[in-house]
């Protein structure tokens, strides 16, 4: 079956510290992968997406970066966290342009 793993579930980090959030997909190959940030009253904001290994597109300028070192692994990073990076981060995947739906991870609550 197709599943998506996202960890950690919660994270408290000091300002200026690095960040690494990992997302792994199982049961499919060559998915499109996405990182979203959810903030109250602002819905889900698309941060990054990837259509293949090593291919990363950024949707909004920010303090974060993303990488896709393997087909089913998507990593969200920062070298130095800011207060404004606090939020709820969701990973998601789809295939066939979303025709069969999107699967979302359980999310990471980041407090800086």
């Amino acid at each position: 079956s197709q599943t998506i793993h996202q960890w950690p579930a919660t994270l408290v980090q000091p300002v200026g510290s690095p960040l690494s959030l990992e997302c792994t997909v199982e049961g499919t190959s060559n998915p499109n992968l996405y990182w979203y940030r959810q903030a109250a009253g602002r819905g889900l904001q698309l941060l990054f997406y990837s259509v293949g290994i090593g291919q990363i597109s950024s949707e909004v300028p920010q303090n974060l970066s993303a990488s896709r070192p393997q087909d089913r692994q998507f990593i969200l990073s920062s070298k130095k966290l800011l207060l404004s990076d606090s939020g709820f981060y969701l990973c998601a995947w789809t295939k066939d342009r979303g025709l069969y739906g999107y699967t979302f991870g359980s999310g990471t609550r980041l407090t800086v």
Partner: protein
Amino acid sequence: AQSVSQHNHHVILSEAASLELGCNYSYGGTVNLFWYVQYPGQHLQLLLKYFSGDPLVKGIKGFEAEFIKSKFSFNLRKPSVQWSDTAEYFCAVNDRGSNTGKLIFGQGTTLQVKP
């Protein structure tokens, strides 16, 4: 660029009341449309989606939505809400012609149903 607007940010209803949540999108091409729900403490869950065909789409838990192309709208409806419908609702759009599959969400509507 695509954008999605949900007009109601916070809706409070009594049980058995009818629900309509507005959603408008801004995009000149062909789109796929979605409604997601997030119950307190749970993952995002797909309520319904529209890709083509009958513009009136029926989803889970008695929800339906109507795609009106001329109005760029995809409003969510339910004839009679229950307390268990208390949740946050998100409208979303993707570009059918793009291989990125980017899903763009609205700001969300918090629905509170009073027993």
